[in-house]
């Protein structure tokens, strides 16, 4: 029935359209082609002028309306040290392109109105003007040079790897269909070796348990980081391409199977500090559940999030992890609570190459040296 109705509607629209067409053709016959052309020119010109006004109002008005939801404009300022630099670069580009946008759109539609055809008016023979053309070649070239230089300056600094001797902590994020698996190096500060052939149900990252660096590695469910400390994220993938995306930190990098990538950044605000700033905006004082006015305000439940930004299959939209930025003390306390994955899930199971064999530190007696470097 609905299908029939839809088809009937479509047919009706087609009939109406055809009738409009017929009517105008009759009108053209009655009033003469030339007169109709004059009317059409005038109307179209006025249309462009009206459109120009409406368009600019729409652009500027909507930007103001959505300001507080946009990263970098409202309360969602960058939560990383490099992020604010990227935001200011965005704003710089917006400044220049905004000027060009407004000027060119105004010129285009103003001319489109001003020079709409009139009977008896002669068009201007104006085929070229070298001076003008040089101006609008050179000016964009200068602006572009400026933007390129400031852009590349920021890019090379942001993308630089850790310098020798610099203090930093390393964490690892591994994408798979459809979640992120996080790994911290544990007290030794080093991530252990992995081999994708070793991956199975209890060894999701394919860690090589003969590598003692793996013994203290932890697998938390949240990305918890101390504020103000340089972090190097090692980004890997188990199956297809993913992308490690932290919108609030202005950070994005593909996860490529078989080729670890990295991104170095420094969180500049804790989650708590960020929440407190959000609480100043009325958008975030709204209740989390619109149906229940007594539910907690949005700012209170706010969390930084980790997302996937490279199409990876049907669950691409759901790869969420919470990111918590805390003070150094809170971080150490949190870290102290975490147990290594090896200790909780592998030790003395069939998976453990040292099943039943005491490890150094576990026993006063010297343990047999682990078979070393089988896979690096």
């Amino acid at each position: 029935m609905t299908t029939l109705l839809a088809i009937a509607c479509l047919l009706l629209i087609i009939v109406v359209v055809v009738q409009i067409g017929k009517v105008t053709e009759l009108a053209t016959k009655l009033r003469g082609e030339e007169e109709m052309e004059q009317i059409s020119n005038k109307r179209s010109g006025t249309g462009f002028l009206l459109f120009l006004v409406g368009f600019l109002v729409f652009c500027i008005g909507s930007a103001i309306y959505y300001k507080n939801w946009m990263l970098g404009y409202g309360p969602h300022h960058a939560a990383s040290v490099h992020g604010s630099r990227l935001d200011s670069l965005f704003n710089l580009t917006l400044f220049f392109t905004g000027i060009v946008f407004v000027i060119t759109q105004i010129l285009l539609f103003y001319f489109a109105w001003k020079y709409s055809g009139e009977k008896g008016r002669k068009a201007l023979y104006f085929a070229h003007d070298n001076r003008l053309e040089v101006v609008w070649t050179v000016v964009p070239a200068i602006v572009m040079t400026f933007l390129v230089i400031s852009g590349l300056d920021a890019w090379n600094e942001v993308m630089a790897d850790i310098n020798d001797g610099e203090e930093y902590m390393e964490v690892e994020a591994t994408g798979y269909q459809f979640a992120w698996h996080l790994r911290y190096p544990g007290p030794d500060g080093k991530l252990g070796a992995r081999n994708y052939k070793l991956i199975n149900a209890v060894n999701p990252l394919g860690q090589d348990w003969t590598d003692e660096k793996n013994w203290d590695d932890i697998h938390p469910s949240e990305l918890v980081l101390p504020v103000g400390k340089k972090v190097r994220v090692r980004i890997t993938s188990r199956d297809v391409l993913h992308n490690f995306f932290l919108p609030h930190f202005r950070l994005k990098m593909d996860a490529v199977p078989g080729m670890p990538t990295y991104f170095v950044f420094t969180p500049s605000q804790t989650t708590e500090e960020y929440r407190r700033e959000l609480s100043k905006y009325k958008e975030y004082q709204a209740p989390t559940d619109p149906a229940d006015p007594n539910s907690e305000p949005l700012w209170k439940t706010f969390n930084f999030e980790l997302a996937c930004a490279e199409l990876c299959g049907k669950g691409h939209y759901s790869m969420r992890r919470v990111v918590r930025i805390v003070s150094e003390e809170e971080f150490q306390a949190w870290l102290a609570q975490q147990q290594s994955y090896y200790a909780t899930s592998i030790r003395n199971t069939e998976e453990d190459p040292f099943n039943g064999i005491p490890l150094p530190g576990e026993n006063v007696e010297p343990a047999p040296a682990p078979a070393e470097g089988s896979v690096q």
Partner: protein
Amino acid sequence: MATAANKSTAPAPHDVDLLIEEYGYDDHFHEHHEGDKYQSNFFTTYIFSQDHKMIARQFLITGMFWAVIGGLMSLVFRLQLGFPEESLAWLRPLLGKWITINAETGVGTLAPEFYYALVTMHGTIIVFFVLTAGLSGTFSNLLIPLMVGARDMASPFLNMLSYWFFFLAGVVMFFSLFLNTGPFAGGWTAYPPLSALPQASSGSAGGMTLWLISLTFFVVSVLLGGINYITTILNLRTKGMNMWRLPLPIWAFFVTAVLGLLSFPVLVSGFFLLIFDRTLGTSFFLNEIFIGGQALDYVGGSPILYQHLFWFLGHPEVYIIILPAMGIVSEVLSVHSRKPIFGYKAMVYSILAIGFLSFIVWAHHMFMSGVNPFISNFFVVFTLIIAVPSAVKVFNWITTIYGGNIRYTSAALFGVGFVSMFISGGLTGIFLGNSAIDIQMHDTYFVVAHFHIVMGVAAFFGMFAGVYHWFPKMFGRFMNETLGKIHFWGTLIGAYAIFWPMHYLGMAGVPRRYYRFDNFDTFSHFSAMNQFITIAAVLVFAVQVVFIVNFFRSIWFGRKMTTRNPYGANTLEWTTPVDVPHGNWPGKIPTVQRWAYDYAKAGEENISQIIPLAEGEHDQGH
């Protein structure tokens, strides 16, 4: 006679015949084409035609068919994005098992796999079948022989093959929509490993195989067309038509064909390596993969290599799409402003510069893909240099309408709309081309807004301008102007309503290709905006129905073209008879005496290219 012609004012129709007879070039066409054995029956006239004008119409109508399919697909996934809670059960008769019905509530939900298949097919279809074949295929075929003064393409047979390979590509792609595992669903860029492994996505099974076969046929079509366009432009120009006298659409089609010829084979090489990985167990793009509970044997390949091969085509491809639109708009704006195009040579040089630069910017799609960040420095520089020739073109179009006497046909309206769209979408490219800003903007809705405006909507505007403008040349009748105007204003306002708000989504960090946004607090604040976009998309699609009705009605019932040059244009296609015969000119081929843009010169409204220069007159095209 020569002096009489010199003094002639805007030539009356019969003068054209006299001029061609007097100065034209006799290639003894009639002695070879007695009885026109190439168009002897229905099949050779309408189906397996070798006439470039018929092939152009075939490309156009096939392109329109695919535009409707691709557009409808976008409506379905827009419904999902705008109204994720609404039941889509009513789509079940059409989409079948891809709509799952909740047994208790009766609510129908679009399967995420199929959402991604729709997104993928929408991109593939619109980019390749509509904006490459439908735009460049149509107008290169129609205009190249007519505008350079040739009887037909250099090889009419290859030209026919070009269409039929395109048709075949379409048939294969269409079949893939009905596979049990679904059509390919890994994005139009088809990045491996997702596209290589059926375990990763059901669409990567048979759907991907058909996708690869279809696009390989498509590339054959582009190459057959391209060598023909290039050969025709270089070798079959009529007497007097030197390169500086070519109308701008021809320059644009020429550079487009060169880009296609150089870049599409690279894409095919990538496709072949991908086929090897999928079927022969090679590891060109695959490395250390654990999927479906199994560690695969592929070792040593690089998924990034595929991205290089893909984008080596992928970036020139966006210029393959936009250059023909630019050429068409240059011509349309000049003719209807009754003014010469401003800065003809600068326009040509900027087309050439854009064409050249398009080959050395591909990795700007890959800033965040894990390539060495140092490499990105080069690609940022070259990418932002493209802004310079693009700016030159924009200012030249604006100056072209400055001081004009603009006749607002639907074609001219779309021409002005094109420039507005190209400005809006081009400027956001300056953000994305700068790798530092791209860190945040990459793969967000900011990118979606950017490329839809600059190469989607703008290219469609160029195509519409061309269809309205040359419709009389194709079908001997005019399209209805009132309906054309409804179509234009609806599309201009609607297209901005769809894509402008997406900038804000992107600036809020919302990633593209998400099936729902409510898993993330950061991305879930925009339901009202998403609904607005969806409603705008439905309305814009409805306005395209007006165009389609207008198009088909006008073929048979439109106002007849009675004079051969209704717009008072200078180019050669308007010197052919109203009913253009096979071979384009019944007698001699006209000789070209001047450049294509002598409008408003020396007190004349326009001076056709076939009118000889007056004594002491300076010609711009030399």
